[in-house]
Every structure is written in C-alpha cells, then in structure tokens.
C-alpha cells in the first residue's frame, strides 16, 4: 500500500489502547475504510486520517478524547460528512471521531416543547419525531435527510426557513459536550429564561468542532404551522427578482421562505427533479408562507401582487401540499444538481444585508464575465444569503487560478457591502484565508484566545477556521 495513506498498524501500542476503549470492531484503519472518510461535501479538499473511530456512547467519546489528549493526537469530529466548508475533512495524522451511531432520541417533552437527543440523530428524524406531537423543528439545511443534528449545531446550520424561523442556534437550549480534557460538561437548561453565568452553549454552537465534542442536544420545538402556501414567481432579470424580495421585506411581510434560483440552477434542478420549474426565465423566486390559514392567504396574495408590480412574468401557486414539498425538496438539491454541468462545483456562501442584494447579485454576474467563468447563483434571498456556485474543473490549473481570483473579489465586495463571508456553511478550511479580511485584529485574536483557553493542546479540529501559529502566541 502507498505510504501516504499512513495506516494505523493494528499491533501498535496506540491502536491496542484505543481498541480497549472503543472495541476493535469500532475502529477502521485499512485504506479501503479510510479513503471514504477523507472528505466532506466540499469540492477539492481531501486528507487521510490514521483511523476512524465509531463510538456507540457518550462515555466512549470521552474515553477517546482522554486517549487523544494523553497521546497528543488531533481529533476531527464528524457526523454524516455533508459539510460545505471542509470543516470535517481529516487532519493528517489525526483520528476521525464519527458520531453517526449516537443516534437515539432520548425524550420528547410536549409539556415544555423540547426534545433531547444524541448528536448523531439525523436532522429530518428530529422533525419526524416532533410531528406526532403537533410540533415542528424548523431548521432545514439542504442535507437534512442525512445531516446529523450535532453537525448542524457545530456549524450553526441554516436552511430554507431562516427568514421567519432563524437558524439552528435559535433552537438549541442545551448541549452536553466533551471538553478537550475529556471531561463532560452540560451547558444550558430547559428554562426559557436562563442567565446563569456566561452563555457557554452559544460558544460551542458554530465552533466547528474546535472547542469540544457535542454528544447530546436539547432542542426547542415550536407548534406546527396549520397552513402553508407556496408560490413560484418567474422574472426576466435577476435584478427584478432581487427587487421583489427586498420589497416584500420592506412591506414587513416575513414569509418562511424566499428562495432564489437563476436560469442555470433551474435547468439543472429541473433535469434532476422534474417538478415543473420554469427553465427559460432568468430568475425564479420560490416563496412560502406558513401559519394560520387566514394570515397565510393574505400574505400569499400580497406577495403575488408585489411580485407582479416588480416585473414578474408569471406567479404560480403550488397545486397542493405534495407539490409544495416537492418544490422545496428540489430547491434543496440545487447545489448537487449543478454538478451536472461541470466536473467541479465550488459553492460560495456570502451574505449581505438584505437591502444590498441587488448589488451583490449584479457584482457576481460581472465577475463571471470578467473572469470568463461559469457561475450559477441561487440562495436564500430572504436572508441576504447567496450561493454563487462556480462550475469549473479542478484539473484545469489555469481556470482554477481565475476561480480563486473571482472568489477573492466576491469576498471583498461582500465585506465592503457590510456582509459576511459565510452565512451558514462555516469557515472550515474553505474560507479560512478570507476570515482575517472580515475580522478586525482584536476580534480575530479573540477567537484564538478562546481556542487556547479551552483547548490548550490544540487537539480538536486543528487548522480549521484559523491557524494557531507560533507568531500569534
């Protein structure tokens, strides 16, 4: 076997100690086992771990962390590996701690509207378990059918319903977390109000596995909306679509979803999902409102009027609930469906204040022309969160140089517009280089101070978000 794959030999003392903690059957170390754990959902990022560990309980997770701390071996935690920033790509010479077997829902508490579950539970399973109680878990990242709730919390994932319902953070009431020392901490409570001490759970939400390993999550649930209306508006310019979205918000209508897809995205999604998306319009906006039936009717009618006033070519209503679900599901597949066009699909996640949507969308169009690149754009327009997706080929080095130039320019423009380099995918490896452009010196250094205070050995997901180099210490 090639040396670079760095096989963790099964008779080494380290392996034997680790297997006494997790059981040999829960350690993978052969190249055929490791290669499929070398990546997440991000293009062109790949690294090989020494082994993958699949614990079955939180106690075993703590044991693995104590082992890693004693042996000074870095640990990368992952769930289903659907991240979009390289956050769960292995670290060379490190262990991958995969939590998919921690998949029990421990309690649904309808009296307090909460759910307690292990971190490896699939996101959709959380909402499915809430359903029989008439409850709802709103955050719905694109990969919800397979992403784990622990991964969502660690990345503070968003989704299609962010506009009205917010993001994962808004639903986390408590977490159990294994600290880099191997101790287990419980942070948060079932109380709606809780100001005891620092809001420590919030530090771990979105920390991308760099501060601790989340093993349990206490989630807030909300009443399931009684009614829902889905509209599909087509436009012949992207600007008209962006303007419609800004106007809807300006009129103080807050639907749960205002999704935008350009022509290229519509064509790719339609080729896969066949749900009747218009493929000739320059832009399509998927609008969804939910809540009480009368309010829903009113909002749907108002949005249709605003769309027409702002140049919509057509406004259609989903035939029924099943069609509405198919439309939303199709939209969730947008990123993957775009992979039909070119071999490599590089996804951006920039977010701007909503009033600046038109600026960023037209800037991306201009960049694509200037750098001779194929860029499709879709995103959560209601949140100001756009996903310009560069369709390219990683083996074409000349083109990849232009890709990097374009990305850099999009990032600079975003920051100039008062935006952020990532709205929901996280920094991970993919956006690490851009972070210092957004943060001033004091806030960038604060990140590192927090990291050093909690993980002094730098063992948890090192090299993600930022580098802890000697020069800063």
């Amino acid at each position, binding site marked *: 076997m*090639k040396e670079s794959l760095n096989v963790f030999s099964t008779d080494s003392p380290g392996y034997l100690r680790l297997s006494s903690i997790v059981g040999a059957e829960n350690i993978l170390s*052969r190249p055929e086992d490791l290669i499929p754990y*070398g990546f997440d*959902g991000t293009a062109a990022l790949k690294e090989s771990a020494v082994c993958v560990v699949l614990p079955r309980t939180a106690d075993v997770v703590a044991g693995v962390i104590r082992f890693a701390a004693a042996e000074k071996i870095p640990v990368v935690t992952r769930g289903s590996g659907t991240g979009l920033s390289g956050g769960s790509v292995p670290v060379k010479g490190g262990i991958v701690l995969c939590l998919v*077997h921690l998949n029990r829902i421990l309690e649904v508490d309808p009296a307090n509207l909460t759910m307690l579950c292990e971190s490896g539970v699939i996101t959709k399973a959380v909402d499915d378990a809430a359903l029989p109680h008439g409850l709802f878990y709103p955050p719905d990242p694109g990969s919800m059918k397979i992403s784990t709730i622990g991964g969502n919390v660690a990345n503070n994932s968003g989704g299609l319903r962010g506009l009205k319902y917010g993001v994962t953070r808004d639903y986390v009431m408590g977490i159990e977390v294994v600290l880099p020392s191997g101790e287990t901490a419980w942070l948060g409570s079932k109380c709606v109000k809780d100001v005891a001490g620092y809001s420590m759970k919030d530090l771990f939400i979105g920390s991308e596995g760099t501060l601790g390993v989340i093993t349990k999550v206490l989630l807030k649930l909300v009443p399931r909306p009684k009614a829902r209306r889905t509209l599909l508006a087509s436009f012949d310019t992207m600007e008209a679509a962006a303007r419609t979205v800004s106007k809807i918000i300006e009129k103080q209508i807050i639907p749960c979803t205002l999704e935008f897809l350009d022509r290229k995205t519509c064509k790719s999604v339609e080729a896969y999902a066949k749900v009747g998306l218009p493929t000739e319009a320059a832009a399509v906006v998927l609008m969804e409102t939910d809540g009480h039936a009368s309010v829903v009717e009113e909002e749907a009618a108002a949005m249709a009027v605003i769309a027409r006033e702002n140049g919509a070519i057509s406004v259609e209503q989903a035939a029924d609930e099943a069609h509405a679900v198919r439309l939303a599901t199709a939209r969730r597949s947008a*990123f*993957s*469906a775009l992979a*039909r066009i070119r071999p490599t699909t590089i996804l951006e996640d920039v977010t701007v204040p909503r009033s600046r949507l038109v600026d960023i969308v037209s800037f991306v169009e201009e960049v694509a022309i200037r750098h001779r690149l194929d860029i499709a754009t879709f995103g959560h327009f209601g949140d100001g969160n756009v996903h310009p997706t560069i369709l390219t080929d990683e083996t074409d080095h000349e083109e990849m140089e232009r890709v990097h130039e374009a990305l850099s320019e999009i990032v600079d423009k975003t920051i100039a517009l008062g935006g952020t380099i990532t709205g929901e995918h996280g920094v991970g490896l993919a956006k690490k280089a851009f972070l210092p452009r957004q943060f001033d010196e004091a806030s960038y250094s604060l990140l590192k101070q927090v990291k050093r205070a909690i993980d002094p050995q730098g063992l948890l997901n090192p090299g993600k978000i930022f580098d802890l180099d000697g020069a800063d210490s």
Partner: protein
Amino acid sequence: MSDPVTTRPLKHMGDLDYSVVQQCMHCGMCLPSCPTYLETRQERNSPRGRIALMRAIADGDLEVTREFGEEMYYCLGCLACTTACPAGVDYPQLFEHARAEIEHQGVLFTPGRRFWRWLTLRQIFAKPWMLHAIGRMLWFYQASGLCALVRKSGLLRLLPEYLRNLEPSTPAVRRHFSAELIAELESPNFRKSRVGMLTGCVQDLTFSEVNRDTVEVLLANGCEVITPRDQGCCGSLHAHNGDLDQAVIQAKRIMDQFDLDSLDAIITNAAGCGSHLKHFSNLLKHDPDYADKAVIWDGKVRDISEWLVSIGFRKPEGNSISQKVTYHEACHLCHGQGISRQPREVLRAIPGLDLVELENATHCCGSAGVYNITQPEQAAKLQKEKIACIQRTGATLVATANPGCHLQIQNGIGSMAEVKHPVSLLAEAYRAERSSVSVE
C-alpha cells in the same frame, strides 16, 4: 493486514472516462437511499464511498485489492443511489466497470469461484441450448417427485450449508418454455404496430406464462408480435457480474435476432433485463459494426408497462379480480429505468382490483440478481423488511415486474399472498372479459 495486491494495468476501469468518477461531488445525498450504508453506517458501504475508492484507484492512490472487490460485491447494484443523486452520476457504468476490473485482476480468485463463474456465465447463461437442457432436468427433478424424495432422504445434507439453505427457494421450472407457448409470429385482428418480444432467460424457464400473458396483452392492443426462437440471456447477468466481454457477445447475439427496421418497439417484461437492454450503445460504443445499430436498439427497447401506457392500452371491462393488490417496484424498473407510474396505471385500469400503496415500495427486496446467493445474510434482512411492509398493507396480491423480485417475495411471503406480474393481471382481466362475453 496487507492484502495481496496485483500490479496489472487497469483494463476496464481504465476504459472509463475520468469525468464519470469526477461527476460525484460527494454531497452525501445518496447515503439515506443506500441499503448497505443504512445497515452499517460506514462510508465505504455507501455509493459515494465506493466511488471514492474507484477514484483513488484511478488516481493511483489505491490498488484493486481484495477488500475493494468484496466491497463492490457487497453493493446490491439496486441503483437507488441513481434516483437519489442530484448530480446525475452514472453509477451503473461505474459499478459494472469496477466489477469487471475486479474479475480482470482476479483479486477474489478461488478455484471454486472460478468454476462456478465459468459454469454459469460462460456456459449455462451463454448458451441457450444448455440453459434449456438444465431447465428440462430441473423440471424433471421437481415434477417427477424426485425432488421430494431427495428432500426426504436427507441427501441434501451432503451439500454445503449455503447451497442447502438455497435449495427450497429454487424456482419451480415450467413444463413449457416460451417457444412452446408463443408462435414466432402472432397477429392481432387489427394491426396498429409491430413489436419484437424478448423472452429472457430466467423468465423463459420459470415464468414462461408471464411471457405468454405479455403476448396476449400486446395482441389485445393491436400489436403484431415477433418472438425469435432460442434468444438466450441478454447479457445483463454478465454485465452486472463483472463479465463485460461476454456481455458484449450476448448483446450482439440478441440484436442479430431482430430486424430492427421492421419493428416499432422491442418489448421486455423483466426489469433487470430492461435496464441493461436500454444501454447497449454504451456497451458497444467502440464496436465499428454494432455501435450505430445499438443506438437505434436502445431507442426501441420498452418495458411492457411503459409501452402499454404510451400506446394508450385498452381498459378491460367487467369486474374480474376483486382483490387488494400492492405494488413492489423492482429496482431496475424504478431506479434503473425511471418507470414508476406506468405499472400502477396498468393495475388501476383493472376493474375490481384495489391498489394500496406499499410503504418503501422502491426499497430493494434483497433479490438483486444473484445477491441472495452471494450475500444471503444481507439479502434475508431486506427480504424480511419487504415482507413486513407487504403484510401491513393487508394485500392478498403483490404485483411486481421482475423475476428475481417475484421469487424473492413469493419465497418470503409463502401462502399469505400471491405474487403476479402486472401484465399477467391485465391478461387475466382480458380473458375474464372474453369468457363473460361468450357466456352471454
């Protein structure tokens, strides 16, 4: 720890366009659709994991090892991932080339395995006369009472355990094969179109009446039916099991038996065959004599339900079958050919039949070609799940359009329900209609 590795150059995977592998952007959308991933929750047992291994081989980071070979044979080839994949990865092509490479490199070699592969792929399923001879012997064994005698005698204990466990599920071979039930040319009263009829290999021996039913339904809808004699296997079995060289021979042989220009369509009623038959152009793209013909061929192959719906088949009258039926979607029909709606339309057209939807109808039943022979444990788990879902429907009839699924489900459900091809139910309804007319 280290597997025996070979250093032979890639033959079959080398033929693959690298862009087919690159098409997978490892987003993970395939994971929840994959029966083996759901069983183990390990990435190598998932579609994107398997593709990652193929890519590592193509990149020179991994040799074709025994572990890789075992992984590719743990894959059911159910193609549920292709339905789930937004990026449109051509997994069937990757799967077939990977298995062919595994055979080419010989990483799974044992003398016994080589013998069985030679006997089945290169003899029995390569030569129609031999398949028929074996079929005759099996029929005699089963019909003569010899089978019961052998079972009673305890002779079966001499067989290895896995064969012994399989013996009771050996399909009952029919007394009459397709050629005895179907004339080479059968004409309807008023001809609207002209079609070729594929009789299959397993279908021909164990479900020849489904072939007869197919022809009757075609005749009832104005199709003249040409059924060439001694068709043999279309090569689907070979392609799915890593013998692409023989698959090419089988494909050419079967194409030679049909006069394509004179036919509006070529009809198959077995899902596993259909999903292979529609991709001959890919298999034969480098063959100067067959490449063009294969493109025309692919364009004419139709599953029977697909064809019936496209020509607007006639709905039978009367109230012939008052039963509750549920529909199991054969993987190679729904995932392999994207055909889900049409078989249901056929079932709904039958008066008296009450179609109830089956939970997880598109999940594999574990038959998966010869998977229930090569991976009996995983196959049995899937069979059990499928049967439990069927039982919850309360149906007494299960409709499915593939011989492998048919046998797997009938073996699992026993006498609680009867398994039928949708076209057989339609044929039955037409027959009932005719007899009620003649009685009146």
